[in-house]
């Protein structure tokens, strides 16, 4: 098997007393898309910036294509394309001028600028000043700049945050095509579960600087031993002591008023009859009863105790 294209080994980074990254190991193979998920302040941006060479780890090692950053900056900058969280480009430069500036850094000619304008569908806006672009157009410009050097590795920090679903989907399609056509490798941080599960085959969940889970979506759900959810809401309150008597339950989350419960199970077929029996025995009138597959969102809440967008 080929060596991973990105390799992060036992990396730590501290800011005064805060452990921003606390012993993270990560490997990304060529052509693989990996999503880094975590609530705000989990350490995602710090980790990505260390992989980008912007910050240096306090301990541990990072290798890109088998090379550390130190001494290989010039070469690694050529193979990486990146977009940072909230970069403001020069306001009174046009889209074309901005692309030309960055193309100049890589020694690329005008033809590449035209290709990027075409790829990001910013052709109509090529002579518009950056300050007059919409949020979506600015994100597309940031992506265009990330792609200008035909990078083997893409490092994107929240590339679609704040965009409407249409604009987000446009960016997804561009990224999907890159993987199919050029076997690009990508590390993406995102707040959107849907984005992670649509684009990436591998998912890493981090919180407080530590990796909580990593693998494909299916692997994560299997490993969590709860891949299905029963949601029940009732008119009268239920009691936790009674609910726990139902066999083979992985986790029960009862609402404060006791009128709604989420039961996370690993085998719906065996548990559902027991739940129905409980409803019958307790003479409970169900308001809603829903059974569904567990999503990445559910898994995230289970692992971190927080929603992805929570502060």
């Amino acid at each position, binding site marked *: 098997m080929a060596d991973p294209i990105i390799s992060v080994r036992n990396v730590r980074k501290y800011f005064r007393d805060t452990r921003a990254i606390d012993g993270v190991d990560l490997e990304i193979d060529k052509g693989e898309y990996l999503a880094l998920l975590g609530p705000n302040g989990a350490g995602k941006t710090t980790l990505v910036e260390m992989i980008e060479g912007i910050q240096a780890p306090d301990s541990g090692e990072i290798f890109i294509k088998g090379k550390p950053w130190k001494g290989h900056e010039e070469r690694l900058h050529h193979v990486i394309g990146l977009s940072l969280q909230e970069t403001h480009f020069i306001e009174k430069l046009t889209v074309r*001028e901005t692309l030309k*500036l960055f193309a100049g850094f890589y020694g690329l000619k005008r033809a590449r600028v035209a290709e990027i304008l075409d790829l990001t569908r910013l052709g109509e806006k090529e002579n518009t000043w950056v300050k007059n672009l919409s949020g979506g157009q600015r994100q597309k410009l940031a992506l265009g700049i990330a792609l200008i050097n035909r990078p083997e590795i893409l490092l994107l920090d929240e590339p679609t945050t704040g965009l409407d679903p249409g604009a987000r989907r446009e960016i997804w399609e561009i990224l999907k095509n890159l993987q199919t056509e050029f076997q690009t490798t990508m590390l993406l941080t995102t707040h959107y579960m849907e984005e992670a599960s649509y684009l990436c085959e591998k998912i890493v969940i981090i919180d407080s600087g530590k990796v909580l889970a990593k693998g494909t979506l299916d692997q994560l759900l299997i490993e969590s031993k709860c891949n299905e959810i029963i949601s029940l809401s009732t008119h009268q309150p239920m009691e936790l002591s009674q609910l726990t008597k139902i066999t083979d339950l992985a986790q029960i989350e009862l609402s404060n008023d006791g009128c709604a419960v989420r039961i996370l199970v690993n085998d719906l077929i065996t548990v559902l009859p027991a739940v129905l029996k409980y409803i019958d025995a307790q003479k409970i009138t169900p308001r809603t009863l829903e059974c569904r597959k567990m999503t990445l969102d559910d898994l995230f809440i289970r692992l971190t105790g927080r929603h992805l967008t929570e502060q």
Partner: protein
Amino acid sequence: MEQLKQLVIVHFKEFYREPGIIFWAIVFPILLAIGLGFAFTDSRDERRTIGLIYKNTDSTDWLNEEHFRIFSEGEMKLGNKKLGYTTFHFEETDRDGAMNMIKQGKSTLAISIEADSLNYHFDPANPEARLSYLLLSGYFNGYGDKTGDQIVVLKQTGMRYIDFLVPGLMAMGIMMNCMWGISYNNVDKRSKKLLRRLVATPMKKSNYVIAQFITRLSLSFLEAVLLLSVTHWIFGITITGSIGALLLMFISGNIAFTGIAMLTSSRTSNPQIANGLINLVVLPMMVLSGIYFSYHNFPDDFIRIIKLLPLTILSDAMRSIFIEGRGVLAVLPAAGILISLGAVLYTLALKIYKWY
């Protein structure tokens, strides 16, 4: 080379697409030179109000007809064509009224009529009051209005206020251009995370700094040429010394202030802090380095310190080329100091520069 070319083009576009910057960097110094040039280069008629304090009617016995005529008319014009004319307007008041006039800035001097003389009340530290005193006491002591007879007017190029002012403004233009154009611009880019985005590409940091230096040098040059052309046209300003020496000082000044600007902008990512830091560097030099008025009125110990300021070194050297006709050799020490200062500060700045 492509990197450098693109960076220079972008820095120029950033400049000329901001009309505000064009005004402050190019138009304002020219307006300032014209305004101050007209205000202080030609003598003109002045009007001054004097508080006249009558103690009581008994005390006026000794006054002669001339005194009575002037005080009753309430106005007197002294001076001549060479010196310019000063019209004194006398306003009768009591002691408190006269003091209030001085406090309010309506007047700088009051005259009280005593039993056998006129007394002059003023702050001797105020040059305007001192001049009024000399003119009035001379006249009333019987010398009449003879001032001006022995005056030889120096109006040749090089001796006027505008000749003093233009080289100073040119030096200040270099300082302002570098401090705001490099320091503020870089902190602004850092605060917007653009600086870190730029250095996350194969862009060479040296190219970035060289491009900024080239842009600022060109813009200072453009500003200086415009300032010189306009003041030459209006006031007949000329460079009596060597153009080569002026160019040398021009480049040395830009090197020194690029170093200072890089050091000033080396750490902070807050444009408001940058604003404060830049003003901290710029304002003392604007006031002390003798741009508008000579620093030789300060105490000697203080002058020794003032002479060490980079803007003083630059403006003094430029002035010596403009007015005293100095050449390259004469300004070499000043150029050497400025270039060394720039190089040391630039090296130091790069060691601590926060690109990310």
